[in-house]
């Protein structure tokens, strides 16, 4: 089933066009990887999906992005509601300089998802369990989140993102600042999370894309060169550029 449908998306930074005519369908409860060389626009596209580009003054987005058949670029779309449904995990772990508990409970608090302290405790515990962090931190929930290791911080950010039960999780190179062990943990987690969430992940590592994703889109110079099932893209791409990139001839 198609969860997100992008139609003819153009993105401009001031006068410079960063994305050209991107049309891409994203399957529900699957992992879609976006790959491509630096500066090709894959992160920009990801940030279109929860309208994070709004923050950048000079950035303008054209085209339609339908999530559950609703155009999020429409004026009637409420950004706060949208971002409640679409969580995001960033490249560098960015926990709030607050306690672990406050980090995870922040989203449910501002969206009024828990009626009681007990309910909130449950949300925090479940989110941390789903992020495979609970066992490591259950005794120090009230210590600062910035005191964790890099990999733990990133899992904390994932727990924070899933605490509001988003339908979609966007991940912008979530492992680029982590060591191989932490990376393996996050990848395992992504596999687990796709049961309940639709996941879109931007990655520089082709091996990672091959390991975690079911679908892959290849971006180059602001254009979506090719997309399809990960198997096909990696084994039998239609486009010469895709082939060259995957085999490491450029990029």
């Amino acid at each position, binding site marked *: 089933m198609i969860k997100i449908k992008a139609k003819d998306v153009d993105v401009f930074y001031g006068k410079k066009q960063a994305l050209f005519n991107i049309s891409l369908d994203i399957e529900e409860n699957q992992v879609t990887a976006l790959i491509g060389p630096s500066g090709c626009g894959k992160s920009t596209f990801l940030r279109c999906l*929860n309208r*994070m580009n709004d*923050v950048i*003054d000079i950035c303008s987005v054209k085209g339609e992005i339908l999530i559950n058949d609703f155009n999020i670029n429409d004026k009637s779309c409420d950004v*706060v*509601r*949208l*971002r*409640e449904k679409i*969580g*995001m995990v*960033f490249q*560098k*772990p*960015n*926990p*709030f*300089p607050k306690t672990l508990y406050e980090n995870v409970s*922040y*989203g449910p608090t*501002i*969206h009024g998802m828990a009626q009681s302290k007990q309910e909130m405790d449950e949300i925090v515990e479940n989110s941390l369990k789903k992020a495979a962090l609970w066992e490591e931190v259950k005794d120090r929930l009230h210590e600062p989140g*910035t*005191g964790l290791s*890099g990999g733990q*911080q990133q899992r904390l*950010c994932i727990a*924070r*993102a899933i605490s*509001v039960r988003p339908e979609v999780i966007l991940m912008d190179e979530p492992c680029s600042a982590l060591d191989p062990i932490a990376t393996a943990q996050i990848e395992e987690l992504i596999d687990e999370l796709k049961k309940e969430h639709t996941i879109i992940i931007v990655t520089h590592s082709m091996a990672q894309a091959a390991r975690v994703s079911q679908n892959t889109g290849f971006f180059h110079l602001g254009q979506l060169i090719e997309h399809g099932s990960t198997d096909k893209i990696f084994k039998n791409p239609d486009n010469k550029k895709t082939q060259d990139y995957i085999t490491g001839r450029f990029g």
Partner: protein
Amino acid sequence: MNKNKEQLLNKRYKAEQRFRLYGLSAIFMALLFLTIFIFKIFSTGYSAFQKTWLIVPVTFDAELMMLDQNPSKEDLQDADYYDIALKSMADLDPNANEDQENELKRMVSYFFEKEIKNELLNDPNLIGKTKEVYLTASDDLDQVFKGNYPRDLPEDQRRVSDYQLKIFDQLVANGKVESKFNISFFTNADSREAELAGIASSFMGSIFSILVCLMIAFPVAVLAAIYLEEFAPKNRFTDFIEVNINNLAAVPSIVFGLLGLGVLLAIFQLPRSTPLVGGITLSLMTLPTIIIAARASLKAVPPSIREAALAMGASRMQTTMHHTVPLSMPGTLSGTIIGLAQALGETAPLILIGMVAFVNTIPGSPMDPAASLPVQIYIWAESAERGFVEKVSACIMVLLGFLIIMNLFAQIIRHKFEKKWS
């Protein structure tokens, strides 16, 4: 080739050595100036914290005080103390003629009558008895006792007569002159008499001014900074505002004084010489300093924190109030304190709005006339009496102490509450 390289290397080392020497001598010069400055202030000022007292036997003669038998508290309040006060001073030299009695009276402050009265009010049983009472010495004798007075001047050039010196020396020889910590320097308001003048009025004036300044400047500046940094679109108009805020920070303070005079006093008819007007004027000066500090510390909050909050579905307002502003507070607060410390040392604008007036009462609210510490220094520095010289330095010491404490506080806030990013 090799030799050339060696020479070049030597040259580089020499250049570095020279540079270090320049740096060291610059620091040495700076320290030297500072030491001279502080030494000068302390050496002239420390004696102001001591006060000289004459111990004079006073006979509380009921008849001279015009008191009846068993006087009530009110009778004691209304009694006439002038005669017994005069008498006790005159008794210091039984052979004194009328002129000399007058000179004897001037050896103590004109406040001596009240000091004797307080003695009796504290202990009404003294009526009819004789007690040794501490009387504040006149400022000139105070200086004589502290060794700051040139005794070898010809008599007609000094304010202390030979006769007074003779009696004073006798008192000293009998141990009837004592030096004690000068509490009244901190509890008295300004006075024309150096021995009675204190900093209470100007100190309270400064505190009230700073409070008014804080209450106006802080909220306005923080809101302006938050709006400019977090909400305002970046366009020509906001650039223009930013440039003007920076310009405002560089405007000479006397201009703000003129503004206070022309607008607050002339148009709004606010009470002259009050900490209220002073505080408002100072807040105009402090505003740009706080705005700049607050914006800098808002800028220092990593954008990743804002992104994290926004991506969680926090509105811009929530992102700002829950995350950015609390994280920027330590920097904003220390900037505010430094701005206030600047305002505390400001003299020119306060002179223009009339806080230079002679105020001999301690203000109870920002609406009462008051001086301020720097203005007090200015007023005393203009006074001719020798007794004010040490007061000027002492007042500078108090002001410097105040400033050091404020700056220390700013440092502590910054170090204690600043969050470390991973």
